């Protein structure tokens, strides 16, 4: 008996093994690769090994010796020849602005000359080499493993003594964006609950044929392409769109004062609420469906008003559905990308959009990874809560 149980365990595990391996390779490995970039940035260390080695002996305050200048000059020239100077210059520049142009200019001006003093030649090319902060930036960008992307993602940085301090006020953008993302997610979750609860109630308490039809009205948008639904909001909300035309036609607004409802936070909120609403209605309906109508009838028979019966009998039993729907909508909101990117304009962007910006435009992959890691931790915590309270096996899509 014990043997056959062990056999059953092995057989069950073996059945899941192919998918576990597949997800491990095609999903978890890429995720790990991404997250590793948040702390691992070897490019500068690999590109300037000699400079960083001689810079080890530098006291950090005075100007480094001629050997350091010479090592850096040689390595910059090599990188320039290999056409791989840009990546190194960009990375150093993230720690000290002005370093990118200094590095590029230095490499270009030193190309043909073999000066007597590398130090003088380099300072002539870019005066910043005269300042210790340039070398500190070089030294720190040469750290193979670093927490600076996480510090940056939390609006912090290290000062010249290595203490963790807040970024200058004009560069603090990430915490407020994270706050905005959480705020937007809360708002959308609450609106979805307010809109979704009565609808789920109606569906759950209708006769089967009508309830199936009403359910379809929720499921069809649920399964309709995200891009289609986002497009339809553009059609409706834009300045020359259907709603503004209608408002002008009935005289609620004038041709000159059309209401900007899209390419801003309003657009993000409206479109995301509509897109995520089914994720609230379906779990609520799933729970309400199991509550026997006879309970409300019994409460009425015992003299309760509808309000009393609802608050005392019905509402408490729907709390698991509220938890499931709210967590689901919230989890999906904080990671939302497509809709804010298309209808959010400048003010309606969320944290995912900034991750995409750093992936595709600024190419600061370390920072994108750190922001991604923070977002992922939020999502993982919420999902853990969801799994505890609801269980993934209770999710449904039909």
């Amino acid at each position, binding site marked *: 008996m014990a043997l056959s149980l062990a056999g059953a*365990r092995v057989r069950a595990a073996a059945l899941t093994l192919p998918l576990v391996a597949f997800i491990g390779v095609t999903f978890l490995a890429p*995720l790990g690769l991404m997250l590793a970039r948040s702390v691992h940035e070897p490019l500068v260390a690999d590109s300037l090994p000699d400079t960083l080695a001689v810079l080890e002996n530098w006291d950090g305050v005075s100007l480094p010796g001629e050997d350091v200048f010479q090592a850096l000059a040689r390595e910059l020239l090599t990188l320039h020849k290999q056409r791989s100077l840009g990546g190194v210059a960009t990375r150093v520049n993230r720690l000290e602005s002005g370093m990118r142009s200094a590095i590029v200019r230095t490499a270009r001006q030193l190309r043909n000359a073999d000066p007597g003093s590398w130090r003088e030649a380099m300072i002539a090319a870019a005066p910043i080499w005269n300042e210790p902060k340039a070398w500190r930036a070089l030294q720190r960008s040469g750290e193979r493993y670093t927490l600076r992307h996480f510090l940056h993602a939390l609006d912090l940085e290290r000062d010249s003594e290595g203490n963790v301090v807040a970024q200058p006020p004009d560069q603090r953008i990430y915490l407020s964006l994270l706050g905005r993302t959480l705020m937007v997610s809360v708002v959308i979750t609450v609106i979805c609950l307010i809109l979704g609860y009565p609808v789920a109630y109606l569906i759950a308490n209708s006769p089967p044929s009508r309830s199936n039809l009403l359910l379809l009205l929720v499921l069809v948008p649920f399964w309709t392409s995200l891009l289609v639904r986002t497009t339809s909001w553009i059609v409706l909300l834009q300045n020359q769109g259907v709603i503004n035309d209608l408002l002008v036609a009935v005289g609620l607004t004038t041709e000159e004062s059309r209401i900007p409802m899209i390419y801003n936070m309003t657009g993000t909120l409206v479109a995301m609420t509509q897109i995520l609403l089914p994720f609230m209605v379906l779990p609520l309906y799933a729970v309400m469906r199991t509550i026997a109508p006879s309970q409300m009838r019994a409460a009425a028979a015992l003299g309760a008003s509808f309000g009393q019966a609802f608050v005392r009998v019905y509402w408490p039993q729907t709390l698991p559905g509220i938890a499931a729907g709210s967590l689901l909508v919230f989890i999906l909101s904080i990671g939302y990308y497509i809709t804010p990117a298309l209808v959010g304009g400048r003010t309606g962007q969320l944290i995912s959009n900034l991750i995409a910006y750093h992936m595709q435009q600024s190419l600061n992959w370390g920072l994108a990874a750190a922001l991604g890691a923070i977002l992922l931790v939020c999502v993982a915590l919420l999902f853990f809560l969801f799994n505890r309270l609801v269980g993934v096996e209770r999710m449904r899509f039909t």
Partner: protein
Amino acid sequence: MTSRTASFGLGDRLARWLHLAFCAAVFVFLIAPMLVVVPLSFNAEPYFTFSEGMLALDADAYSLRWYRNIVEDEEWRLALANSLFIGLAAAAIATALGVLAALGLASPAMPGRALVTGLLISPMITPIIISAAGMFFFYSYLGLSQTHLSLVLAHAALGTPFVVITVTATLAGFDRNLVRAAESLGAGPFVVFRRVQLPLIAPGVIAGALFAFAASFDEVVTVLFLGGLEQRTIPRQMWAGIREQISPEILAVATFLVAFVLVLMGVVEWLRGRHGHQGEPAR
């Protein structure tokens, strides 16, 4: 409705009417945006709003020009072919692996079920931008970025949770005595699966496969990160259309996609009706 709900006083009846009106408004909010797209896709003018001619139901204000454009356009044809190929291949992989895993997860002997389930569901929960960025690094590292293969694998990974959840739910209502009975009659594991389990869980399997396909068919972010010009899919074309050159062609495509979903939902409903509610996933 009155037969299923308790009856309360007059004030409550007023509340019920308010409730119905509120729900009607919410349904309009859910459905109307998609319906607006359909007539506008027949607009003869390159505008995103109803022209006076359209409102007057003037036949000349309506036209099939945007439909003609997309049918004749090489890029949209390539996008359709890519979407179908990637969607079908990804759904096939996701379904095969997902059904096996669901069979394992449904077994009472499965060790570490909660952990494995969480792991297998993670692609659905992880914000898509993080998954896509990771896959970008991964497939670039392997030299596979800008290939169909990378997109098939990416979409298969993103589609498996739908199959796992749907099939696991179907199996939850499955009577394991049927397996024991078949085994006692001498059937091996493969025969048990093929002749006993598969026919009973078929609706769940088909639904899961459809959802995996639909998820791939609607996915744009991994295509943005992994695909090149040769891998453009329909959502990728729509993305470009919305961001760059917005034209009513997009509304014509959107109308097609709404019709596609209606067909898909019809198939799922038909499957569920045909097999009764016995194999229905837990709601």
